[in-house]
């Protein structure tokens, strides 16, 4: 039967489904009480700064309706900035101001909005419109990342970001998320952005996925998306891998950006990273996660733990392309339970 055949093929390829992700990874490795650290972007940022991880600079926080008056003081010194709900998900509620115009604000897409409209938006965020479960929220105003010109050729407006999935601090899969016209400049796959796989070893882009399909060209620019070398790849990997210590969560998706001046920065962490990254990489997450789990079990026997650099090295050794290299290496003792 068709369904059974598909099932078998996906299962053989080690493709992870939502049920497995929830049961075997999210539930198993992520302690519920640690969720606020990743769900609240202000907390994430504070933790990151405390351990010396690069994040976009925080200009200010608005917590109450009264504080909306502070907005002008906060952005006084900055021509461009980003307004974000602290607990927002999926990029909702984010306004990116690129410039000022006659006492008004100009978004990246060129739309002019007034100070009043911004006040209304901030108020909406505070009342919990964009937060998970409709709780009251806080607003953060932060440095606007200007994407490295490198992405110009394969991106449309917006800021591309890099998503790396970590299991117990080991990067297992990565992709670049490129905004499209359809996604409205947002880097979210479910809104129509494209995801392009990244070779963890080299930082070279692979083919991509767009609306659950495999693609090789950007739908807006029609440029090839594969074969682009991301700069400072080791920097990205090290930055991402260190987010394990930062959050304490075992299975997370780390979103990073490459700023023109400041290099790789951590944008946010996600405790339930999506699964489309598998289509972008044409590889299964389960296969890779099982390898890391076996490696961890082996380490545990010898009583060793690995540093960030070791973990990155492991990932680069085993999860680079071509896929054949990801086969279980000979030095791995203690096979699956």
């Amino acid at each position, binding site marked *: 039967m068709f369904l059974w055949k598909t099932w078998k093929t996906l299962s053989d390829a080690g493709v992870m489904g939502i049920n497995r992700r929830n049961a075997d990874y999210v539930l198993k490795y992520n302690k519920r009480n640690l969720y606020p650290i990743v769900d609240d972007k202000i907390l994430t940022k504070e933790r990151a700064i405390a351990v010396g991880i690069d994040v976009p600079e925080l200009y200010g926080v608005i917590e109450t309706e009264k504080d909306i008056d502070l907005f002008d003081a906060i952005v006084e010194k900055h021509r461009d900035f980003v307004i974000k709900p602290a607990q927002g998900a999926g990029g909702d509620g984010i306004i990116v101001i690129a410039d000022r115009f006659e006492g008004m604000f100009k978004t990246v897409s060129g739309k002019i909005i007034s100070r009043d409209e911004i006040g209304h938006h901030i108020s909406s965020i505070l009342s919990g419109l*964009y937060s998970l479960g409709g709780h009251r929220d806080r607003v953060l105003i932060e440095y606007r990342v200007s994407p490295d010109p490198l992405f110009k050729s394969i991106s449309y407006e917006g800021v591309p970001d890099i998503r790396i999935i970590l299991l117990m601090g080991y990067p297992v899969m990565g992709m670049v998320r490129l905004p499209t016209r359809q996604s409205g400049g947002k880097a979210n796959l479910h809104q129509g952005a494209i995801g392009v796989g990244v070779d963890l070893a080299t930082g070279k882009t692979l083919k991509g996925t767009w609306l659950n399909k495999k693609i090789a060209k950007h739908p807006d620019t029609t440029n090839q998306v594969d074969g682009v070398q991301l700069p400072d790849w080791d920097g990205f990997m090290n930055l991402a891998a260190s987010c394990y210590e930062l959050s304490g969560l075992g299975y997370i998706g780390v979103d990073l950006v490459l700023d023109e001046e400041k290099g790789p920065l951590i944008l946010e962490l996600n405790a339930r990273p999506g699964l489309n990254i598998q289509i972008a990489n044409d590889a299964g997450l389960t296969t890779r996660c099982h390898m890391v789990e076996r490696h961890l079990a082996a380490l545990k026997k010898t009583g060793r733990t690995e540093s960030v650099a070791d973990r990155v090295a492991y990932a680069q050794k085993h999860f680079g392309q071509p896929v054949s290299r990801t086969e279980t290496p000979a030095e791995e003792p203690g096979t699956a339970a």
Partner: protein
Amino acid sequence: MQSINLHLKVLIAILVSLGLAITAYQIYVLDIPVTQDETDDIWSLDARLEFQAVAGTPVKAQMFIPPLDQNYISLNESFISNNYGVSINQTDGNRRVTWSARRASGNQSLYYRLVLTQRYSPEAIEDPAPAPRQPIELEGAEEVAADALIRPIRQTSADIETFVSEAIRRVNDITDDNVKLLLGEDTSPLGKARVLDVLLSNARIPLELVHTVRLESTPNQEPELWLRSHNGERWLYFHPETGQQGIPENRLVWWSGNAPLYNLEGGRQGRVTITLNNSEMNALRLAEMTTENTSSALLEYSLYGLPLHAQQVYRVMIMIPIGVLVILILRNIIGIQTLGTFTPVLISLAFRETDIGWGIVLFTLITALGLSLRSYLEHLKLQMLPRLSVVLTFVVVIIAGITLLGHKLGMEKALSVSLFPMVILTMTIERLSITWEERGGGHSFKVALGTLFAATLAHLLMSVPELAYFVFTFPAVLLILVGFMLAMGRYRGYRLTELVRFKALMTKG
């Protein structure tokens, strides 16, 4: 992880086997009907004793009544008689009612009524074996005739069973001179039984006369005579004329022995009319009725023990897990997106009150109107809370409007929207609005459709009467459900929609 898995497996095994065991116990041991429509036969037996009282003498009427320890259960037994004292006594395994009155005159009617059923009866208790008996003394020609009959019977029989059969066969051959002599004038079944009694007593074989009634709807039934003999292990029943062995299922033993059905002192022209009536009764109601008469409190601790109004509530409530199960399967195995986890179940409960077709129309209509108002309000740049408040108030107004319109148009269905569905609807619209704000119209449409589908499916399943009855009567089924849900908690396989979603990964290269 290993130990947790084992723990879970053991837990599931315990829950499922417990659920199965309790349900099986209820069905097979307590004999609770599996479907609601199951009915059982109920027999009501009326015996009317009529006679002319002799003026000036006290009246004492005695009549045998069926013993209650048979294969049947009596639901009701009553004695109806004006100005008569009633007493019941047990003699030699028979029950006998005695009506007595100091004085009576004219036509007298005494009634006895027994309502019985076969279901739920405890295991039938075999009557004890009879004591060995002395041969009935015979003299002269009768003795010779009896001997002449017994001898060939003894030769052609092997045991008690065949002996009795053979004896019956011979006694029924009234051309035989010996039989003629013993029977005399009386060739009725009773006469033949009397002769058989004589013959068998001389062969030292126990024999009893049993008088039975047929459980058939017949007026004026005559008690039917059967014979029974004990072979040392159990009673064997014989028909005194045909020699047929084994009493048919529908015969109820009334009394045994040679005594007549009734005897009368102080009365004459006695006559007994026996009428049997058959009716069917819902098996479950019957079970409830019989609990009072049997020691097993089979329904005492079930939900049927609750007061009726509470039962009504639980009938609905106990189906909620079934609805939840539907949502669980739709979400985790199929992969359909719904608004929250339990909202669909609540909507399906609301459908109970509005009825499904109308419910879907109402849901679609009101949600669509509510959401369009929401999108209009978006232009006004209102804060979220006031905006939602306006939407919810609007929903109430729409519902009231629809109800009013429906009433004017004579559509009674429109009046069925009560508070509960209204609350559910407004909640749904609130959540849909939020989804719309957060994820956009397309997504909220998809979610709304998934919710409607899940709710409809859950409702259809929850309102299957057989299922509702089954779960209410056998609540242990819920343990099996919990077992399944626990197993689902460890389900790691793909959702069906993921097979489509990841289809791109099928093609290599």
